[in-house]
């Protein structure tokens, strides 16, 4: 469709004219104008909702809201065309078959072996071994090898040594969805463990010997303690209500040596509504401070984040300080349980704070343990009541921790944002379906590519320059402040206002420090080489000049030209009185965002064309950072980092 206008959210005056394309996998908006041809790409999988607004004099507005919080506002001149686009997008954004998803057509041009290697990057058996199992207390259990016991669990789970197959099967029959207690994390220092399950089908008075034996087995697997905690992450009222439906929670009288604890985290419906309300606040036009803070509070979002974090802290404390094992469950054991177990693991074990470690953690507690990615994130068109930002909340917990402990994580914010993006993008096969079983049936690993391999390949972009593995913060357990601590939870504008560049600090400290670090390293290497050369020269008069000059050239290119940190940016609309001002909103969508969603087909250059926006008015100076040629000046503007995303998605 031609002559479509793309509006800017903050400044309705600033609109760009272009052409809208719909393909099998993307919506693409290409700006008119011979030089720029800036493109905005949106994957259909990312589309959360489409709203057709009332036709005005200028045309028919169409609002596309994405799962990665991008909001695209288009104005289509003809109502008829707008309607066509609307209907098409509705269909395209709601695939009914997996084969329609992008991951089955995405082709990063890797050969079969590379694809396989990619999937092998994260190996859970290796991870359990690293934790220290199997050992005297824990064994691998293959009773579920054909998914016969629990179809949402993986084929291999770890259980206490004293849990026989009979006990496991018996326990599984007494647990919602057959999700029996299994090992999530083992602390080899003190043998305490975190196990996870779903709620018992206890009703008001039902008992199950095998289930009670299962919990005893968990207790026995930790000789250092004579009881275990059983943590129900639901609010007490909800858990009690479940009893009327024949489910419920563990009765301390029936299960010997357990201490039972409720830690109330609300359910998926509450969370879905909470996010919705928060996004509405984000969409307010020119909100006052009051509108924003009240809106944020009313959404309850940060309160929920804190609840998840508090649960993780409780469990981490039980394991690390008290040396007591914990069994965690919610209702079905695949939402809140996953959140809480992963947060606790992150606090306990510094390995999970590395890049590889986080990938492993997600693979273990979310992917392998049957978190319902399809239902929760809408791979396919399904029940809207199943949709909920469960993993988004976990990812935000990680970010909140990164803000409190800036030196403790190997990765940076961009890593988290990209992971979140790809949970919804369906570009890679990881986050499809609802269980390991379904993924194997669809032969995901043979037909799609691994996200972890892709992220790993580009790990240089995801590093935290402040991380040092020998640093105090990176060792051992993290202890977030418990109280008072409300102020520690901040609104994550990097995620929820991700595409509004004008809102963020204009200069990326992370990128700058990474470049500094890199340059220091280069200089040190150069120094070494020069030192050797000097030594050689002193030995003989025949110095080899060729190598040295190459080194020098390279270092000249990378020399931090800090003068390039200066940037022009534009004023926001501070006033309506000064109508004469050509106030361009700082929040233009840059091509960097379309670069994020670039497929490798569309890659014109490894760097998106930033020179288009380098005039003073639009506020972004020409910065090319990290082009594969290794040269370029320093990124001092937020957009700079996103040029890496183009490379990243190139495959």
């Amino acid at each position, binding site marked *: 469709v031609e002559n479509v206008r793309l509006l800017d959210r*903050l400044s309705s005056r600033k609109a760009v004219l272009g052409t809208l394309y719909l393909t099998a996998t993307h919506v693409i908006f290409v700006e008119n104008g011979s030089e720029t041809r800036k493109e905005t790409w949106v994957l259909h999988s990312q589309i959360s909702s489409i709203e057709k607004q009332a036709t005005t004099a200028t045309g028919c507005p169409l609002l596309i809201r994405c799962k990665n919080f991008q909001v695209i506002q288009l104005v289509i001149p003809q109502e008829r065309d707008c309607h066509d686009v609307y209907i098409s997008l509705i269909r395209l954004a709601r695939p009914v078959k997996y084969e329609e998803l992008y991951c089955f057509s995405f082709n990063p041009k890797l050969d079969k072996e590379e694809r396989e290697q990619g999937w092998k990057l994260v190996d859970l058996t290796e991870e359990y071994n690293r934790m220290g199992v199997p050992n005297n207390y824990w064994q691998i259990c293959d009773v579920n090898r054909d998914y016969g016991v629990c179809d949402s669990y993986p084929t291999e789970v770890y259980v206490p040594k004293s849990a026989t197959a009979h006990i496991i099967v018996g326990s599984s029959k007494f647990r919602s969805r057959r999700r029996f207690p299994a090992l999530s994390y083992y602390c080899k220092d003190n043998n305490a463990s975190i196990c996870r399950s779903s709620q018992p089908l206890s009703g008001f008075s039902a008992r199950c010997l095998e289930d009670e034996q299962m919990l005893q087995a968990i207790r026995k697997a930790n000789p250092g303690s004579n009881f275990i905690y059983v943590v129900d992450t639901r609010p007490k009222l909800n858990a009690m209500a479940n009893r009327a439906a024949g489910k419920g929670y563990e009765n301390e009288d029936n299960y010997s040596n357990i201490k039972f604890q409720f830690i109330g985290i609300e359910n998926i419906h509450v969370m879905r509504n909470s996010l919705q309300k928060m996004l509405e606040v*984000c969409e307010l036009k020119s*909100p*006052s*401070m*009051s509108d*924003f*803070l*009240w809106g*944020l*509070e009313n959404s309850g979002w*940060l*309160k929920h984040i804190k609840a998840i974090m508090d649960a993780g802290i409780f469990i981490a404390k039980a394991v690390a300080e008290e040396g007591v094992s914990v069994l965690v469950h919610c209702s079905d054991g695949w939402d809140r349980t996953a959140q809480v177990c992963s947060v606790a693991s992150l606090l306990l074990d510094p390995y999970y704070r590395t890049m590889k470690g986080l990938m492993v953690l997600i693979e273990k507690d979310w992917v392998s343990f049957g978190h319902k990615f399809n239902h929760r994130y809408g791979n396919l068109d399904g029940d809207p009541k199943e949709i909920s930002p469960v993993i988004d909340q976990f990812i935000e917990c990680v970010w909140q921790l990164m803000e*409190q*402990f*800036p*030196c*403790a994580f190997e990765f940076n914010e961009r890593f988290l944002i990209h992971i979140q993006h790809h949970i919804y993008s369906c570009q890679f096969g990881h986050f499809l379906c609802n269980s390991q079983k379904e993924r194997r049936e669809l032969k995901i690993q043979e037909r799609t590519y691994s996200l972890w391999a892709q992220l790993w390949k580009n790990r240089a972009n995801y590093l935290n*320059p*402040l991380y*040092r593995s020998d*640093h105090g*913060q990176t060792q051992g357990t993290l202890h977030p402040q418990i109280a*008072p601590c*409300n*102020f520690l*939870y901040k*609104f994550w*504008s990097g995620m929820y206002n991700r595409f509004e560049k*004008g*809102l*963020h*600090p*204009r*200069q990326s*400290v992370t990128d*700058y*420090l990474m470049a*500094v*670090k890199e*340059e*220091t390293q280069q*200089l040190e290497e150069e120094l070494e080489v020069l030192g050797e050369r000097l030594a050689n020269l002193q030995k003989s008069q025949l110095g080899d000049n060729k190598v040295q000059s190459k080194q020098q050239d390279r270092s000249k290119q990378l020399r*931090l030209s800090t*003068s390039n*940190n*200066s*940037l022009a*940016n*534009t*004023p*926001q609309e*501070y*006033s309506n009185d*000064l109508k*004469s*001002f050509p*106030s361009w909103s*700082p929040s233009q969508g840059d091509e960097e965002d379309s670069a994020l969603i670039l497929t490798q087909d569309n890659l014109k250059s490894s760097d998106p064309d930033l020179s288009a926006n380098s005039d003073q008015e639009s506020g972004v100076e020409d910065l090319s950072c990290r082009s594969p040629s290794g040269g370029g000046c320093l990124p*001092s503007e937020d957009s700079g980092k996103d040029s890496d995303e183009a490379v990243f998605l190139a495959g």
Partner: protein
Amino acid sequence: MLRSGQPLPGPNRRRCREDEALLGAVLDQGERGFVIDTRSAQAAKQARMSGGGTEPKSSYPHWRRLHRPLERGRPLQESFVRLVEACADPSLSMDRWLGRLESSRWLSHVKAALSTACLAAQCLDREGAKVLVHGAEGTDTTLLVTALAQVILDPACRTLVGFQGLLQREWIEAGHPFHLRCARSAYSHARLKQEAPLFLLFLDCVWQLSRQFPFSLEFGEHLLLTLFDNAYASAYGTFLCNNEKERSLCKVKESTHSLWAWLSQPEEQHKFLNPLYSPNALVIWPSVEPQSIQLWQGLFLRWIRPSQHLDEAWAEIQQLVQEN
């Protein structure tokens, strides 16, 4: 950019030829200027009844008046007190924290101050127009706006030395009554009438700028905290008294040491520098959207929140830059 106190037409709408001539002389032929009045239109009108007022259009035809009400005086002090209380309240649950933060209105004041300063800066930089800023007395919100606008506009004011010069010029010599305004701070029960944290509000705004432009200020948070401390209680005479006349009468220069002298000693100065600083010759336009304005934790939670991990992070940053 000019600053002054309010004009005094009074209830009888007096005129003053000299004042009109002065303002007329500022403008070039055919040029227009802006008057930014930091009181609401209504407050400015009411001021007329007690002898003050605004510049009437008829007498100052080439000046266009804009009202940007900024809080001052008792209400601002109350806002400060409420914020400090909210931060220190251990019983506050998460689902009430933001509401308490909001009802202190402190962040709204920060937003308003930044917006007004940006407006002044825009007039100068984008419109190329001259600006006159005044409130009532010309000693509080006026100085907030003019000083902040200069930090936004002028890279020289963002250097350590330049910033000190700005403070000396726009706050101390311009006659901000430090002695009255920075008397007891937030915990005192004596609610003094003249007390108001305008200077703190200014420092908070500067901190917001440093957060949004981490490379553009030569100094860091430590300097801002030190200035805050010294405005209230100091071993140095820099912030004493209410104006130059009083300082002269009290012989401040002869009997005390200057804070600036201490700060500029090499062994002290490096503590206040921003390791990420890289001179930015351009104007820095902050975003004043609510998401961009954050609570200055380093000040308001200074004694409540352990800063160890953040200090370590800064030490890392310092080291990375130094190694290079």
